[in-house]
């Protein structure tokens, strides 16, 4: 291979590796391996320091290479000589060895306060001027921090900033302590390219981490919002019955009137049943049962639901039109029946006497759309976006979980649910269920 070809190949290889990782250790590992490996730039050793802008301090992050002449002769020559296919080069195999190496430990303890350095010091110049410097005869050079010098042997070295358009990330330093090879112009160029790509990958990592952190915060906030609703629900549905039970029990303690004792006991018993139901609801809501797919006929399922609600429908003299076709879809029949029961029951409760409810179906793209339309009292515009939140209710005797559970079930079926409503005109609920199931477990 001629030199140019070889260079392009090397750079391509390292850049590709850098781009495919989103882990800070991995990025630094790839970069330093590329700089030190005989295959690539072949420096004796290399290390990366990260820059803390606020404190104006560089902190040692990771170093690869032998600590002294002895190590260079033993361990590292052995690692170098091991025959390894190129694609395995960056794999984790050597990571532990590197992590526990004396050089890496020494680098990890490095700390350079930029404020204390002279203007001529390379570790200050590299951050300020943002360019690569080759340093000849490092031990004789007065412009290298003393703690770095302690790690060095008579040789040449190279230092490059790690920076992107808007951020100074750190520095890469490499030396040729143990083989005294010359640092050619070619090597300087390659070193600089690797530095640029390392910096870009690190910046991407930091941004990615930032986004992940924000995402985490948002999820936490949402959890707290739900927690507030849960607390409010528990106050209303648990504390109130307890107050009643306590109050009527106290009356029992204060009276000898058998009739009153019996009446109070009855009230207490009813309130306890209410409490049990509340607790069952909380438990049901918090346990997510897995979907068990079966083929159902949507029209039959709707018919079945209407049958369950027959009494309430007849009581309000509501006319129900089931206009759905016999579409067959795969879903969890029990869960989907619960959804229709919730939606149709809501429609019945919201309808006026002699009202009309229409249930129809059509295919929209790859979804079966089921539309439940009532001409009832409707939902206020500012309540509409809350109706699917858990524990939100507009009803006197509701738990505020029906729609929240329905939404959860439909979404777990990879479908969606939409609500439109106008006060005193009625409500339309559209349920979209996929015609074909992707991952049937």
């Amino acid at each position, binding site marked *: 291979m001629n030199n140019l070809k070889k260079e392009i190949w090397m750079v391509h290889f390292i850049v590709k590796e850098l781009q495919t990782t989103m882990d800070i250790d991995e990025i630094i590992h790839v970069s330093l391996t590329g700089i030190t490996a005989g295959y690539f730039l072949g420096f004796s050793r290399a290390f990366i320091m990260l820059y803390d802008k606020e404190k104006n301090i560089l902190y040692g992050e990771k170093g690869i290479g032998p600590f002294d002449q002895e190590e260079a002769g033993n361990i590292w020559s052995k690692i170098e000589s091991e025959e390894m296919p190129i694609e395995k080069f960056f794999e984790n195999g050597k990571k532990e060895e590197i992590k526990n190496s004396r050089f890496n430990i020494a680098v990890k303890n490095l700390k350079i306060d930029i404020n204390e350095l002279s203007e001529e010091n390379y570790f200050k110049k590299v951050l300020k001027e943002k360019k690569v410097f080759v340093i000849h005869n490092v031990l004789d050079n007065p412009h290298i921090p003393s703690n770095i010098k302690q790690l060095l042997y008579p040789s040449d070295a190279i230092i490059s900033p790690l920076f992107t358009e808007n951020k100074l990330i750190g520095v890469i330093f490499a030396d040729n302590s143990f083989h005294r090879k010359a640092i050619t112009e070619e090597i300087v160029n390659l070193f600089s390219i690797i530095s640029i790509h390392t910096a870009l990958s690190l910046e991407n990592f930091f941004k990615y981490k930032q986004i992940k952190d924000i995402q985490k915060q948002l999820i936490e906030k949402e959890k707290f919002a739900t927690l507030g609703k849960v607390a*409010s629900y528990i*106050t*209303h549905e648990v*504390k*109130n019955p*307890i*107050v*009643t*039970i*306590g*109050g*009527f*029990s*106290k*009356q029992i303690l204060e009276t000898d009137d058998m009739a009153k004792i019996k009446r109070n006991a009855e*009230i207490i018993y*009813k*309130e306890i049943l209410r409490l049990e139901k509340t607790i069952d609801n909380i438990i049901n809501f918090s346990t997510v049962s897995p979907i068990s797919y079966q083929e159902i006929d949507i029209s039959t399922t709707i018919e079945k639901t209407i049958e369950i609600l027959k009494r309430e429908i007849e009581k309000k003299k509501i006319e129900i039109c089931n206009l759905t076709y016999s579409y067959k879809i795969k879903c969890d029949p029990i869960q989907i029946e619960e959804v229709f029961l919730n939606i149709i029951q809501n429609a019945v409760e919201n309808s006026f006497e002699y009202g009309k409810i229409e249930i129809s179906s059509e295919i929209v793209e790859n979804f079966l759309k089921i539309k439940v339309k009532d001409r009832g009292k409707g939902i206020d515009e500012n309540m509409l976006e809350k109706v699917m939140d858990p524990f939100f209710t*507009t*009803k*006197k005797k509701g738990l505020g979980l029906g729609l929240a559970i329905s939404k959860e079930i439909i979404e777990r079926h990879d479908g969606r649910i939409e609500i439109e409503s106008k006060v005193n005109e009625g409500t339309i609920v559209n349920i979209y269920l996929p015609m074909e199931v992707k991952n049937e477990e």
Partner: protein
Amino acid sequence: MKNKILIIEDDENERMLYKEELEKEGYEILTASSGKEGLSIIEKESLNLVILDLRMPEMDGLEVLGKILSKRKHLPVIIYSSYSQYKNNFLSWAADAYIIKSSDMSELKNKIRELFEGQKDEL
């Protein structure tokens, strides 16, 4: 003449409990199961005190309180609720007392007594 108290509370059993307990204290008790019903009783009856629940469907207690204030400014109101978080709500400051519901009703009873005794002093 007996002091007349209106209890606005949507829960039937709670309503009954409070009525019985306060009748034992020697008051005349009227009840309403919603804010709306309560407000129409306030219009018609001459009352000495209102005991008001906060979380009720349709019209919540704070809204009812606002309406009472605009209609009968001098009618004493005690908020009786399981929720403590509305204590710092601007409107609830306008109530004469804010008491957290408890099956031991002595705090409510004491407060009522205190309010009526204060009224006597004023007269």
